[in-house]
């Protein structure tokens, strides 16, 4: 037969080619499936591994206080139960999908209803949920308890930083707090003491969350929300606003520093101490003048006076939308700024504080920011152009919704000399 005739060698060759092509396509398809599977496995394992960081500062599974421990005691068994249920359900689904996959077989006879099985599959989850609900409700009730608190801190959220003020009270330490204290970014509490947080907000809804010390609590404008906070040992615990609150929500962080009772008393004493002006003729003294000219409209430094001896009272309500700006009276006793987003300590010094053993933490924290440890680059950039460092709707042409008020620190057009002066001055606010 001519190779050119139908059904001849040419036809067989074409069929062979087609067969080869199918085989090649099959191999290609199989190898691409393998590649996809490998990629998915790597991504999945990578995602799992990210949850294994030993130094995750916001790890809710590393409780450091009684409240967080209660949450952990509830969450772990629930997680295990949910995990077992999840594995069983997914396993059954996977088995059914594989076992009864479409292989061209006829559709089996359809039946309806299996009362015993349906009742069992209704009662079993109900029992599991009841078993989970009982301890859950108990934990919720226990966490809402505040009668056993011995110290109160008012916490106020605003875009995008946290203010902590300590009202005059008998609590917190022997003799109580006799003068109000206002600070921001880092809340200082006595270790091993139940602290009552009275939280609210000045603008939008925020959520206060220190994962290692307790769960989240929304802070709603016009309302006061109570939350109990306790740290077992001296140390520093990181947190994060947990309710989306605008442009710089991700930069609205906070930290809780728990000190020994003596250390806390020392901290309080320092906070209410009289203001000491910088020595005349120094760069810091020039910085004080520059601060009064450029910063004191919004930022309060208690005890700061003008040339005529009059007390300078900031009026952030005339400048910024929330009506408040961080009180900088003892700025260098805390070691972060701008919503606890940037450290004022160099990496080594910061590690000394953050990784300090609990029995050494208080002393290291109370050292504050020293000239040797001052990480001035971020602060310098901040003073140079704050909105460029932290998004804050600071465009003057877009302030109509807030009647011309800023939502954060605006661009101040400071000269490099003024920034040098201000850094020298701020370093003395301790």
């Amino acid at each position, binding site marked *: 037969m001519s190779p050119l005739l139908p059904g001849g060698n040419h036809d067989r060759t074409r069929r062979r080619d087609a067969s080869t092509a199918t085989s090649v396509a099959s191999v290609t398809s199989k190898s691409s499936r393998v590649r996809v599977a490998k990629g998915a496995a790597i991504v999945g394992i990578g995602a799992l591994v990210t949850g294994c960081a030993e130094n995750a500062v916001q790890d809710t599974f590393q409780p450091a206080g009684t409240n967080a421990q209660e949450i952990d005691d509830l969450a772990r068994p629930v997680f295990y139960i949910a995990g077992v249920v999840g594995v069983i359900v997914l396993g059954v689904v996977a088995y059914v999908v594989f076992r009864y996959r479409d292989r061209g077989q006829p559709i089996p006879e359809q039946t309806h209803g299996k009362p015993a099985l349906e009742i069992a599959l209704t009662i079993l989850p109900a029992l599991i949920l009841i078993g989970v609900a009982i301890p859950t409700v108990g934990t919720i009730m226990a966490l809402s308890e*505040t*009668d056993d608190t011995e110290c*109160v801190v008012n916490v*106020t959220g605003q875009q995008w930083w946290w203010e902590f003020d300590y*009202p005059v009270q008998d609590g917190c330490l022997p003799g109580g707090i006799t003068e109000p204290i206002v600070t921001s970014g880092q809340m200082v509490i006595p270790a091993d003491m139940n602290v009552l947080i009275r939280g609210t907000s000045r603008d939008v809804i925020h959520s206060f969350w220190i994962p290692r010390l307790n769960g989240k609590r929304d802070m709603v404008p*016009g309302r*006061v929300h109570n939350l109990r906070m306790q740290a077992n040992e001296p140390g520093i615990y990181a947190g994060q606003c947990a309710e989306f609150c605008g442009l710089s929500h991700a930069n609205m962080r906070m930290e809780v520093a728990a000190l020994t009772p003596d250390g806390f008393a020392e901290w309080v004493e320092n906070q209410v101490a009289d203001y000491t002006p910088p020595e005349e003729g120094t760069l810091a003294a020039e910085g004080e003048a520059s601060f009064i000219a450029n910063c004191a409209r919004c930022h309060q430094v208690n005890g700061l006076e003008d040339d005529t001896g009059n007390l300078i009272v900031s009026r952030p309500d005339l400048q910024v939308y929330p*009506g*408040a700006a961080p009180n900088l009276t003892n700025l260098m006793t805390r070691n972060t700024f701008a919503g606890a987003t940037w450290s004022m300590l160099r990496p080594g010094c910061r590690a000394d504080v953050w990784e300090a053993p609990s029995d050494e933490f208080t002393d290291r924290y109370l050292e504050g920011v020293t000239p040797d440890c001052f990480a001035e680059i971020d602060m310098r950039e901040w003073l140079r152009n704050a909105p460029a460092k932290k998004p804050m709707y600071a465009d003057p042409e877009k302030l109509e919704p807030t009647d011309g008020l800023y939502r954060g620190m605006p661009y101040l057009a400071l000269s490099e000399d003024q920034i040098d002066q201000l850094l020298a001055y701020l370093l003395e606010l301790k």
Partner: protein
Amino acid sequence: MFTTGSKFLIGASVVALLATVIYGVGQDGVLGTVGLASATVGLIALTVLNAILRDSNVFLDDEAPVETTAAAQPAPSGSVWPLGFAFGAVVVAVGLVSYQPIVVIGLVALVATGAEWTVQAWAERASRDGVHNAAVRSRLSNSLEYPIGATVAAGIVVYAFSRVMLWLSKTNTTIAFAVLAMVVLAVGFIIANRRSLRTGTVGGVMAVGAIAIVAAGAVTGVDGERDIPVFETTAVWQDEAIMHPAEYAEGAAEGKHPAELICESPEEFPEADEDVSQTVANKSGAYQVFLSESGELTFDVPGPIETGATGMAIPRSNPTNVIFRNESNEHRRLSVDLGTQTVEIEEGGETVEVEAPHQLCTSLIEPGGAQLVTVVASVPSFANDGIENPNGPPGADGYWFFVPGVETATLELIVP
């Protein structure tokens, strides 16, 4: 019977005649009436001539025009869109001379009916098959007509329902809502449990319900909302005394209100104090100030801490709700003196800045009553160190709660 041209001329004559009558009756202008009447006569003459001469009529023995003349084409189906378009034009015209928002309604009607009219006219030329043309029109228009129509219908029902709710008293509103919800649930239950149900029945029930709500909404909307009292607050009177001192003094001289600032007065300001709603809605998480029978002010802050402090502290620049509980035997108001504030007032046609008392207060509260005052202090209390507060104890500076008419009732307010 009539050709298209004849119909046009008859219509134009009728419109001209109506315009002549309306203009002649409604307006005084003789010239305009004469002009319109002339046009009417001319149009009628043309119409009569056209009818006599049977212009544009197709001769029965002429085959070609039978196929080609407009009169020989399939007649378009009936349409309401021209009517709607004309209505929109009239609404626009009425809106232009009366109330501008009406123009928007007219424009919406114009655009909607114009679009529908255009689509229908276009679809009717798609083929000689009327059924096919209708399908073409539906395919294009229904995708917009149904969602927009449903939204408008739902909006009308919701708006009508809201009129009913605002017409009923507060209690009856609750009852009506509950009853309606139960009726909806019951009807849904009945429909769900019927083995077979005609679509028309369900549609009928829904239509009756919708018509009932819209009718009720129309009736209650015309009748108006229930009486919702609006009370003047103490802040209005405080501002009036500061911003318009001359008028305030005149009012006091005429006995309309006491001469003092309302926040410093133990007397009743009828407009501000009578019928004031003393319902305290925000009962949780609020600061509280109590006036005792012995005339002392005490306070309670949220949470269990017994501070033992002599003053109550609130955050700076933060609206803080303070509930005043009058446990004395007299009608009393709670006031807070936050020093002074700079305000701009009109004086002799010019705006001048003056220092005025910065005070907030509740209305006059009956014994056992409570009311909430929201305090916002933007300036820390230490800013007033050394400045005597006239409403605090003798020689005291800072911020103070006080009760007009009760000298012993003072409480320091600390704002850090």
